[in-house]
């Protein structure tokens, strides 16, 4: 289900809740699937006592991956041509994340989107862009 140029306007938005009350186990799951076993994400003792963070925290790429699911739900399967982000704040166990794509511009069969994911405090945790092919 791809987007159609005729149905799109600059400023249109699409939003999803990505996760409610993020669990440490999901972070472990992401470590296992991605192969990034940095203890900062899965090893509470190391992270608190050695790295001096209040707790383990999510891989930035987990947030980017969850946000990517929102994007593909919006633009359709296999339609993304570009997707890039900055990680602007850490994501912690217990966080609830909401993500929004906003139509920034339309050009020659492509839509450019501004992408933003925020936590339950309204703090932006990811900001970026995506581009997708449209009909």
């Amino acid at each position, binding site marked *: 289900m791809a987007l159609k140029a005729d149905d799109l306007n600059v400023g249109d938005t699409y939003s999803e809740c990505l996760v409610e009350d993020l669990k440490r186990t999901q972070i472990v799951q992401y470590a296992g699937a991605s192969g990034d076993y940095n203890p900062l994400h899965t090893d509470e003792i190391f992270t608190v006592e*050695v790295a001096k963070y209040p707790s383990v925290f999510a891989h930035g790429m987990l947030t980017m991956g969850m946000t990517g699911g929102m994007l593909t739900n919006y633009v359709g399967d296999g339609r993304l041509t570009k997707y890039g982000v900055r990680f602007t704040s850490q994501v912690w166990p217990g966080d609830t994340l909401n993500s929004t794509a906003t139509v920034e511009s339309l050009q020659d069969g492509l839509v450019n989107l501004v992408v933003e994911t925020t936590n339950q405090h309204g703090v932006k945790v990811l900001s970026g862009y995506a581009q997708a092919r449209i009909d």
Partner: protein
Amino acid sequence: MAVEKFPVEASHIMMFARSVGDDNQIYYDDEYAKTTEPGTVIAPPTFAQSSAQFDPDYFLRPKIGEPWFGSGGQPTGITRSASGGGGGGGGGLHAEQHFEYHRHVKPGDVLTASVGPGKTWEKEGKRSGKLVFSETVTEYRDQNGELVITARGVGVRTERPVDQ
């Protein structure tokens, strides 16, 4: 990360999709996938990052017979000199990631990943002291040598843990 052989497999795609909480059946069910526009299972947008699994030298994976810096009987398995707190020996934090898709990869593809030179730069951060950024550009090519994904990552090392 340079990778000589990254076989894209359906079960890995399924596990990856589960881990990012994506229940789109195109990642799980090849019968369903036939009814979609791509007509096949494809990988989710950030799947290329899991090429780490196929990098023999990837330093954030415990390796058989080698020390690991995570906790065991002690909070860390390795005593390091105090060089930069924020990474906590973990190699810093991920600051940015960008993907350009030339096509979407699918099970059966066998990719290589080659890493080109990237920039490094410094910045003074409010919440974590001096920040040292370094960029890597990774080109993923398929079994025919065709460029399928260009990835640009930016890592940052902080002087101290990020203030909360």
